[in-house]
């Protein structure tokens, strides 16, 4: 064990004091607990937005722009309205025309109207929406809407869009520069002077589609009481409620968002989308429920995507591998609107420094508008791009200097207690162990000897545990929970966290059961309904286990304390109430566990004692004084074994190893699922998920041409959990949901470098690039030989 974790072990003691009411060893945490929503999902009982039907429900379809950049001169829907079965058509003119955005704190970053009023900025942007009695009629009606466009010149590449004569996509945004971000510490110029070796590289990282299995869909119902209720497949019921209220000019309290079962999110479902907005506008006009379901093609061309980035990286190191300074410049393709782009641009810059100590670091990021599909957050949130560039360059540097890449990483790695100057404090860090585990795995494999055309590559990474910066400008605490104890001992837990498949409901149930001292099956969890659940920022940035988890602990401690007061009164003879605890439905004296009473009895006494009120506990959590970015950081190493057919460039994943530090695990099954899932998505980003655009048009908006990892391509994914203890985490836990999307592409690139000596600077890595790189290498070597002979 490393000194860091020893340190954190020490912290564990005082930690238990802060959660004073659960002194004895946890008995439920990190045990095998199937998801509490499992049976509903395995038997077809779970009702997704996709399945919702309401009385008198109409079906909506959206007319989309065929042009990447055009003025809307006129929209004539008369032919559509004349079609029997069509109930109504809405356009931007039926809205308040408010420019909305999820960065509510900064008006100039709120730039998207969803149903655009005067101008379209990408192919697929909603122009009008129809509601009809059947989906088929709605679809037919779409073709009957006549739109007059004045087509404007478009620009699709950020480098082009920044040129003087490039068309201006948003009025007043010079050179189409949407956001710039700058991070700096130390004095780069000085520290580059100290470096023995400086390397500069250009990289390009492609986009990626979230490709949630449930396409964007919504059912909205506006009623004469001037109240709006909608079912929506999203990652944050509260965000959607608040955004919708704002853009429709309603009070938040009059808007109810229900997102009970969600068919995947991955960072693509916490912004306003066309499905929900058009459904709401139509419903408000017609006073009928309206359902809109995106086709897969719509989901590809008219939502948002991972941000493509051009990276320039300059790194200076000493002969012995000590890092001196790094300078990075990023120009990202923002697409038509901002979305979460500002965050992605900051985070890619921040995580490009991860997980290493840089005496000085300088990052300039530029996000540029183009007439393409908007880009935004996606699992990893800018970090996969950052790692693709950083981790490959570091591997190349180690080779150039003849150093052990693992040891060079270790030498410069983060450690518990390190402070990223002006940015972040590292409370716990398992990087050192991760390096050791990965190094041993690789050594063992290479000692046994790899089959022909096999090679191993690896990459380090780190990630955040939820965001700190309140860009949404929410007055509420970031997370909150309410726990209610019934007289029969059953427990109802209300959280604002959104269950999108990651298992958050189960994780909250586990935390609740552990803290209260009951069993998971005693607990009902309610989430994803803004009328019944407290506000919570929702599922993004790997924040829920940490933040909502802490809120649940506080709520349970509140309730538990109230309960124990009654137990104390009955059992008496104790010094302080903290001498009592509850475990597995048994209320007992900590020093004399056999002395106690059943939980259900206590529930009855307590309820009567409270003159019949049900015992309720409330908990809130908002990170404070935790730097700029996140309260905690996870660390990991990803190693992959690939097989390459050098003649065709055919690449296949053969085996892998994940060493991941997520603090102390809470939901074991959920953790494994998150890591394996992140791996498959990250590997796809590395070599399959190519997303080409031509003149603003996505060339493969379907699952025939957009390739993703399938079962037959998935290697074994053994996982080494490194249990550190995160002082601020619920029972020591931290991020597990996104981090592993970050290292894998770089690990594959590094495998190609270690095996064949080629440097891949563009991802996804496609077969012809490999063949090309091998050819160039061969020619270079020939030339070199030739030169030698010449002498």
């Amino acid at each position: 064990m490393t000194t860091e974790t020893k340190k954190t072990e020490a912290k564990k003691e005082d930690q238990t004091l802060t959660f004073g009411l659960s002194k004895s060893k946890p008995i439920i945490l990190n045990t095998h607990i199937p998801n509490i929503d499992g049976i509903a999902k395995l038997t077809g009982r779970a009702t997704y937005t996709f399945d919702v039907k309401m009385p008198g429900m109409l079906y909506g379809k959206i007319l989309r722009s065929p042009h990447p950049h055009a003025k809307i001169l006129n929209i004539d829907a008369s032919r559509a309205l004349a079609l029997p079965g069509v109930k109504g058509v809405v356009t931007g003119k039926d809205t308040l025309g408010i420019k909305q955005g999820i960065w509510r704190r900064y008006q100039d970053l709120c730039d998207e109207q969803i149903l655009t009023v005067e101008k379209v900025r990408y192919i697929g942007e909603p122009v009008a929406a129809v509601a009809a009695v059947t989906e088929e009629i709605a679809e037919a009606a779409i073709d009957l809407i006549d739109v007059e466009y004045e087509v404007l010149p478009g620009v699709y590449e950020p480098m082009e869009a920044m040129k003087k004569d490039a068309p201006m996509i948003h009025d007043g945004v010079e050179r189409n520069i949407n956001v710039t971000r700058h991070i700096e510490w130390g004095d780069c110029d000085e520290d580059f002077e100290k470096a023995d070796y400086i390397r500069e590289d250009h990289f390009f990282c492609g986009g990626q589609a979230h490709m949630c299995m449930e396409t964007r869909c919504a059912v909205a119902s506006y009623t004469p009481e001037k109240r709006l209720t909608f079912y929506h497949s999203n990652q944050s019921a509260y965000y959607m409620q608040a955004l919708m209220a704002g853009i429709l000019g309603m009070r938040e309290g009059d808007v109810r968002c229900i997102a009970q079962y969600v068919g995947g999110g991955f960072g693509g479902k916490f912004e306003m989308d066309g499905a929900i907005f058009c459904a709401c506008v139509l419903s408000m006009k017609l006073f009928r429920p309206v359902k809109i379901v995106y086709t897969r093609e719509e989901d590809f061309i008219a939502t948002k995507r991972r941000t493509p980035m051009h990276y320039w990286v300059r790194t200076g190191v000493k002969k012995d591998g000590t890092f001196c300074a790094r300078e990075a410049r990023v120009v990202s393709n923002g697409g038509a609107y901002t979305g979460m782009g500002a965050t992605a641009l900051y985070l890619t810059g921040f995580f490009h420094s991860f997980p290493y100590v840089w005496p000085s670091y300088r990052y300039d990021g530029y996000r540029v508008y183009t007439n393409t599909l908007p880009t935004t957050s996606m699992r990893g949130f800018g970090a996969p791009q950052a790692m693709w560039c950083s981790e490959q360059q570091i591997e190349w540097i180690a080779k150039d200097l003849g150093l052990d890449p693992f040891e060079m990483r270790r030498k410069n790695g983060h450690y518990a207690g390190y402070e990223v100057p002006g940015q972040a404090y590292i409370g716990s860090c398992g990087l050192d162990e991760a390096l050791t585990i990965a190094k041993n795995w690789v050594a063992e494999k290479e000692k046994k000897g790899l089959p022909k055309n096999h090679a191993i590559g690896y990459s380090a990474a780190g990630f955040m545990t939820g965001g700190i910066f309140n860009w949404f400008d929410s007055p509420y605490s970031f997370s909150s929970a309410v726990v209610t104890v019934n007289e029969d001992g059953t427990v109802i837990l209300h959280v604002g966290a959104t269950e999108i498949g990651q298992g958050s409901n189960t994780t909250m149930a586990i935390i609740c059961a552990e803290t209260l001292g009951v069993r998971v099956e005693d607990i009902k969890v309610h989430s994803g309904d803004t009328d019944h659940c407290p506000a919570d920022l929702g599922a993004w940035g790997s924040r829920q286990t940490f933040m909502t988890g802490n809120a649940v602990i506080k709520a349970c401690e509140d309730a538990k304390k109230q309960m124990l007061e009654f137990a104390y009164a009955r059992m008496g003879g104790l010094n302080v109430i903290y001498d009592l605890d509850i475990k597995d439905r048994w209320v007992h004296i900590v020093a004399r566990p056999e002395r106690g009473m059943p939980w259900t009895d206590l529930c009855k006494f307590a309820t009567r004692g409270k003159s019949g009120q049900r015992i309720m506990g409330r908990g809130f959590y908002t990170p404070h004084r935790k730097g700029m970015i996140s309260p905690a950081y996870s660390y990991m190493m990803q190693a992959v074994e690939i097989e390459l057919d050098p003649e065709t460039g055919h690449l296949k994943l053969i085996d892998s190893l994940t060493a991941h530090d997520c603090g102390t695990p809470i939901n074991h099954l959920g953790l494994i699922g998150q890591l394996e899932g992140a791996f498959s998505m990250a590997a796809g980003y590395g070599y399959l998920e190519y997303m080409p655009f031509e003149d603003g048009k996505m060339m493969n908006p379907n699952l025939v041409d957009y390739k993703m990892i399938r079962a037959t391509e998935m290697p074994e994914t053994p996982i080494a959990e490194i249990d550190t203890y995160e002082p601020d985490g619920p029972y020591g836990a931290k991020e597990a949901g996104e981090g592993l999307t970050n290292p894998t592409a770089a690990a594959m690139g590094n495998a190609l470098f270690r095996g064949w000596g080629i440097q891949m600077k563009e991802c996804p890595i496609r077969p012809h690039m490999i063949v090309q790189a091998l050819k160039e290498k061969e020619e270079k070597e020939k030339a070199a030989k030739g030169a030698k002979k010449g002498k």
Partner: protein
Amino acid sequence: MIQDFTYLKPGNVKEALTMLSDHVDECKIVCGGQSVLIPMRQGLLVTEYVIGIKGLTELDYIKYDDKEGLKIGATTTHRSIEKSDTIKKKYPVLVEMEDRLASIQTRNWGTIGGNLAHADAAGDPAPVLISLGAKVKLASAKGERVMSLEEFYTDLFETAMEHDEMIVEIQVPPMPAKTGAAYEKFNLLKNDQGICAVAALVTMDKDTCKNARIVLGNMGVTPVSAKSADKVLIGKKMSDKLCAEAGEAAAGDSDPVSDIHASEDFRRHLIKVLTKRMVKHAWEQASK
């Protein structure tokens, strides 16, 4: 949205052919329908009548005898071909090909007749069957005719079938002695359609290539018979070098398109490599 159509369900082949001649230009035969429903959904294919022949069990058969060779009924599913012991024994290459043809769900429902008639340039069975010298039996109310599968394909999604005809049977001649056949497609997902593919049939006479048939998939609007590759091989003493030459020749015979999956040039490069390998593979089998 699929345009409305009237569904006709013949009880036997004769009925089917009558319906076909009754509605010649306004009907579409649908067997499994998995390929054809996609263009219909996209509105690219509109038809008044659909004749559903999936239920025609009289066309669901696999027969073999050493003189006549193999006969497969048009409504036989890919899965039955894949699972047939006869075919596994006599034409293993067909089983290998079927095993990587799309997903099991698709193979369970999709039929060989439907696949061939759909005439997708990226289809797997056609190149293999052509290399094996297969023929298709076409039937109409007027009668039957047999043509080589090679002539059957005229253009992208176009065949030599008259509008009142349908495929009823696929005929594959017996494998000559000392003959090996191989098929390989290039793709990144195991059972995905091929970015390009090659089927090779090689008959040996001692160490000389007596006969060869190289057919390329997705390297033109129809399956491409790489005749000059055949010429390179026939009558020559087999060698790795010769296999490579055959690859070069095959690339020359091909006329691929550029798309997002591969450029024209890269497809040519791939087909060189694949042909070289498959010829060698077939050669090795033939020499067993």
